[in-house]
């Protein structure tokens, strides 16, 4: 039985929405500060050191990126570009850890 590996349905819209409308954009079309709070909280959490060594976080981002691509939310070109950046960061972490191991 021939069955496509990736099956798309009739109501599948490709690239219909370039911009992901978020919850906050709709609730607070002009109240930006709440985004600011999230951002600051996030910044406090992600210290530079953590970001530089947290490989699992980047792997999570890679998987999310793949899902977005599968759901046609980003184009192959965008995917490749972002994947390249994330892979470079992973490589930097690997080198950083290797260096630390030696020291």
């Amino acid at each position, binding site marked *: 039985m021939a069955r496509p*590996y990736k099956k798309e349905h009739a*109501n599948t819209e490709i690239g219909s929405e370039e911009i*992901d409308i978020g919850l906050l954009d709709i609730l607070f079309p002009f109240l930006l500060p*709440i985004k600011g709070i999230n951002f600051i909280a996030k910044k406090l959490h992600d210290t530079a050191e953590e970001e530089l060594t947290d490989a699992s976080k980047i792997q999570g981002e*890679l998987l999310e990126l793949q899902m977005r691509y599968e759901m046609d939310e980003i184009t192959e070109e965008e995917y490749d570009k972002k994947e390249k950046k994330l892979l470079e960061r992973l490589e930097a972490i690997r080198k950083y850890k290797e260096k630390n191991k030696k020291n």
Partner: protein
Amino acid sequence: MEKGKYIYCIVGANKGKKDLLNNKYEFRKKYTSPGIGGRNDEVYSVFYRDIAAIISSSPDISYSISRKNLICHQKVLEESMEDYTVLPVRFDTVAVSKNEVYIEERIKEEVLKDRYEELKDLLVKMDNKVELGIKASWVDMKMIFQEIVEENKDIKRLRKKLFSKSIDKPYGEKAILGEMVMYALKKKKFKEEKKILDFLNGNYVDKRINKGFGDKMITNLSFLVEKSKIEEFDRLVDKLSTVYKGRIKFKYMGSTPPINFIELVIFLKE
């Protein structure tokens, strides 16, 4: 120099297919998919009795979860699935030893022979089953958030209150509203997910609810389905897609080996 073997999966004879028990030649099937890593390594099998490990040569490195690597890994699994029952091994499993021939013997001894009973048991469980995946996401988020506001009196009230005041009010209430909406969104996703699951109920052996992302994605599901039920499952997903047209977008993937149901972890002894 250390030599390694990348291990893709463990395979066994498929019921209803040709009996492979004593047919070593069949088990030495040549793969058309190249090995992972872009070095054009040959993919082949190492067997013990009626089970085999599907492997290719590899240096002692770690493979990142890039799409290229994942597709490469998956292709070998899918090719294996054509003839055998497949038990996927965790992505990025490289067995390393000082000698390439020796490593094959070790995989045979320490994995296939030592874990034979466990592997046979899993092969029986996975026999004649495939994995099918459904990802569902809302098409129009504006509509969904409007629904949330309409369905929740407290959210509606607080939102009205906030909008009637000037912008420079304390953030506290805005943050509370944000949290309330997030909670309502989660509940809404859960409800829609349940509807999808209820609709498919009875047509799968097992299911996994996988991690999703963002506001739009409702659910990310994997189903273990009997081969004989695939057509019925297809029909039901088509129906789902029709019923929710304009509201929910479905991505239907399959058939794949049961990667979300089995993930063999393999370690060789030190």
